[in-house]
C-alpha cells in the first residue's frame, strides 16, 4: 500500500445525557439509586457553598490562597461517585469537592489553606493522595499506584484528576504512556475548564479535543459534557469497569468551566469576557441536575431549603473546629521537623533544639 491511510484502533467518542436545556436522553440515562442521586446532589451543593465560604474567609484574611471548584462540581462528583472506597483518588489543588465526597474533612482543607500542614493528615481508610500542586505530576503517581494494584492482584481502580493545562506537561505524556504499556487500572480524568490561569484551551494545544491525546498511547479517550453529572458518571463508570477488569487505562475529558477565580490571587477579568462567563453560567451543573431531580420528584424546593440549611450548619461547624485547631496549633512550630524522615537524624535534632531555644527566648522576651 504505497500511499494509504492507516486505521487506528480507537476513535474519540463524545457523550452527553442531560443537556444544558435540561433535555434528557432517556436511552442513555443511567439507572442510579435514589440515594446515590441525592448524595451526588448534596455533594455538589456542599462544594459550592464551601467555595463561597472559603472565599469569604480568604477575603477576611482568615485563610490564604486556594482554588475554587465552582462550575466543576459535576465533573468531580460524577466521576468520584463511580469509585468504591477501596479505589484510589489522586487529586490536584482544585479537587476539594471530590476529596470531601471521598471522606476528607472540610476542616482539613481549611487547615491547609490556613497555612497548617497538619490538615494534610488523611483519615484512616480514605484512599486519597494529598493535594499535588505541581501541575500534572500526580498523573505519574496514579500510574505507579495502579501498577502496584495490578501487581498485587487487587481489583481497585485509580482515578486521577488534572486540568486542560496539565495535558501540556511531559509528566502527563509519560503517565499515559506508562499506563498504556502496562495496562494499569487508571482513569485519567481531565477537567477541561477552558483555562490554565489565563491561557485559554485553544492556546494550550492545537489538538481539536484533549480526549484525542489518548490515541498517542493506544488508549481509548472520551469527551463528555462535564457539566452533566449523568454523562460524567456513565463515562467514569465505564472506565472504572475497564480498569477493574484488567482492560487498562482510559482518558476522559470533561468539558466544563471554571466559573470563579483561578485562585484567590487571580483576576479573571484580565483574560476573559463577562459574556463568556455568563454563557457558561447558564450551563451551571447544579441547577441542571437539581431540575432533573425535581422532575423525578426526588427533590422539592422545601427539601432544597432544608438541605441548604443543613449544609450551612455543617460548614459553620467545620469552620469553628478549624479555627479552634489553628489557634491550638499556632504554638506547634517545632512540628516542622516532624515527618521529614521516619527517624530524625542527629543534625536535624540539633537544628530542632536550636529552634526550640530561639522560640523559648522569644517567649521569654
Amino acid at each position: 500500500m504505497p500511499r494509504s491511510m492507516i486505521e487506528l484502533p480507537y476513535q474519540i467518542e463524545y457523550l452527553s445525557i442531560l443537556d444544558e436545556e435540561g433535555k434528557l436522553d432517556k436511552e442513555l440515562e443511567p439507572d442510579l439509586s435514589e440515594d446515590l442521586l441525592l448524595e451526588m446532589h448534596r455533594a455538589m451543593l456542599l462544594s459550592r457553598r464551601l467555595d463561597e465560604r472559603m472565599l469569604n474567609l480568604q477575603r477576611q484574611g482568615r485563610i490564604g490562597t486556594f482554588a475554587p471548584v465552582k462550575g466543576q462540581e459535576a465533573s468531580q462528583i460524577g466521576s468520584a461517585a463511580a469509585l468504591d472506597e477501596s479505589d484510589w483518588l489522586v487529586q490536584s489543588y482544585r479537587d476539594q469537592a471530590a476529596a470531601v465526597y471521598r471522606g476528607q474533612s472540610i476542616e482539613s482543607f481549611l487547615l491547609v489553606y490556613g497555612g497548617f500542614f497538619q490538615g494534610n493528615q488523611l483519615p484512616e481508610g480514605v484512599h486519597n493522595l494529598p493535594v499535588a500542586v505541581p501541575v500534572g505530576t500526580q498523573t505519574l503517581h496514579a500510574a505507579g499506584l495502579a501498577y502496584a494494584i495490578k501487581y498485587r492482584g487487587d481489583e481497585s481502580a485509580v482515578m486521577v484528576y488534572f486540568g486542560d493545562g496539565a495535558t501540556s506537561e511531559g509528566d502527563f505524556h509519560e503517565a499515559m504512556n506508562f499506563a498504556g504499556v502496562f495496562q494499569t487500572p487508571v482513569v485519567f480524568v481531565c477537567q477541561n475548564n477552558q483555562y490554565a490561569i489565563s491561557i485559554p484551551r485553544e492556546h494550550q494545544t492545537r489538538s481539536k479535543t484533549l480526549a484525542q491525546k489518548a490515541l498517542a498511547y493506544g488508549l481509548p479517550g472520551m469527551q463528555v459534557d462535564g457539566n452533566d453529572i449523568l454523562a460524567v458518571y456513565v463515562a467514569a463508570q465505564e472506565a472504572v469497569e475497564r480498569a477493574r477488569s484488567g482492560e487498562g487505562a482510559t482518558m476522559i475529558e470533561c468539558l466544563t468551566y471554571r466559573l470563579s477565580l483561578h485562585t484567590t490571587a487571580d483576576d479573571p477579568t484580565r483574560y476573559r469576557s463577562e459574556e463568556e462567563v455568563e454563557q457558561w453560567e447558564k450551563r451551571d451543573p447544579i441547577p441542571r441536575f437539581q431540575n432533573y431531580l425535581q422532575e423525578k420528584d426526588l427533590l422539592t424546593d422545601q427539601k432544597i431549603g432544608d438541605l441548604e440549611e443543613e449544609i450551612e450548619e455543617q460548614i459553620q461547624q467545620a469552620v469553628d473546629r478549624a479555627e479552634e485547631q489553628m489557634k491550638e496549633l499556632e504554638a506547634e512550630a517545632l512540628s516542622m521537623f516532624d515527618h521529614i524522615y521516619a527517624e530524625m537524624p542527629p543534625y536535624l535534632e540539633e537544628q530542632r533544639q536550636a529552634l526550640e531555644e530561639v522560640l523559648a527566648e522569644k517567649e521569654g522576651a
Partner: protein
Amino acid sequence: MPKMTMVEALNLALHQEMEKDDRVIVLGEDVAVDGGVYRVTEGLLEEFGEERVIDTPLAEASIIGASIGMAVYGLRPVCEVQFSGFSYFGMHQIESHAARMRWRSRGGYHVPMVLRTPYGAGIRALEHHSESREAYYAHTPGLKMVIPSGPRNARALLVSAIRDPDPVVFYEAKAVYRAFREEVPEEEETFPIGKAQVVREGDNLTIITYGAMLQPSLEAADTLDEEDGVQAEVIDLLSISPLDHETFVNSVNKTGRVVIVNEAPRSFGPAAEITARLVEKSFWYLEAPVQRVTGYDVIVPLFAYEDVYLPDAKRIVRAAREALSA
C-alpha cells in the same frame, strides 16, 4: 527619580531592553495577556506584540528548552518559570544544555538566556511556592546565578543578565517584590554579574547575605549597633555564581568574625560554600567560628510557621553575638 517596587523596576528593565533590542523576547506561562502572575511582565504584550511576548503552554521543560533553541538562533529569550519550585521540571534542559551549549560547540553557539523565577518564602503561599534552591544552579558549571535584593539592583542586574552572553538563572524574592520602594533612575543602569556590594560598613563583624535576607540582616546590624555598640559590615552578594569572594574575604580579613545568612536549607547550601571560601582565603584572620543562619533542613512549612522557619533579625543578632563572644 521615581520610587518603584521591585516588580515595577523589573518591568522597567524588560520594557527598556525590549525597546532597545529586538532580540529580546519574553516567554512563559501567563506572561502576556495576564502580565505575569506577579505582573512583572505587565504591559509588554501591548507594547511588543504576541510574537515577542509569548504565553506558552503549561510546560516548564519546553519553556526552557525552547529558549535554548531561540538563543542558539541569536535571540535573547527572557523566560519566566512561574515559581522557582517548578523550575526543576526543566532541570535536565538547564544542566544538560543551557549550561553546556557554549562548551559543547566550542563557542560556536551560546545561550544568552535569562531564566527569571520568583523564589523564597514570606508571602503566605501554597506548598512549592516558598523554596530557595539556588544551590542547585550555583553548583552547575556553565550557569550564572543572580539574586537581587531590592528594586534598584534588581533592575540593573536584570539588564546585565539580559545582555550577558551566558545563561543566567535570575531569582526574584517574592518577599521583596512589593515590600518597599526605592528610587530607580529612568536612565539605563547595569550592575556587573559576579560582583558583591558592601551595603553597610563596619569593623567588628561581617554579615554576608543576599536576596530577601538582606533586610533582616540590615535590621540586625542596626540592633547590634544600638544594643551592643558593634559595627557590622553587611555584604549583599547579588551574584551567587560567580561568587565574589574577594569582597567578603576583604571584609572578614578586617573583622575576623562572620555571620552568613541565607534562607535556603542549611546543609549543602550557599552558606557552606561561602564558609569554605573563607576557610581557604581568610583562615588566619578568622577569630571565631563562622555562623550560619539559614533555613532549617526541612520542607518549608506552610505559611503558619513560615516566619519561624525564616531567618530573622533576632536569629541573626543571636548568631552575631555568638561570633563576637568567641
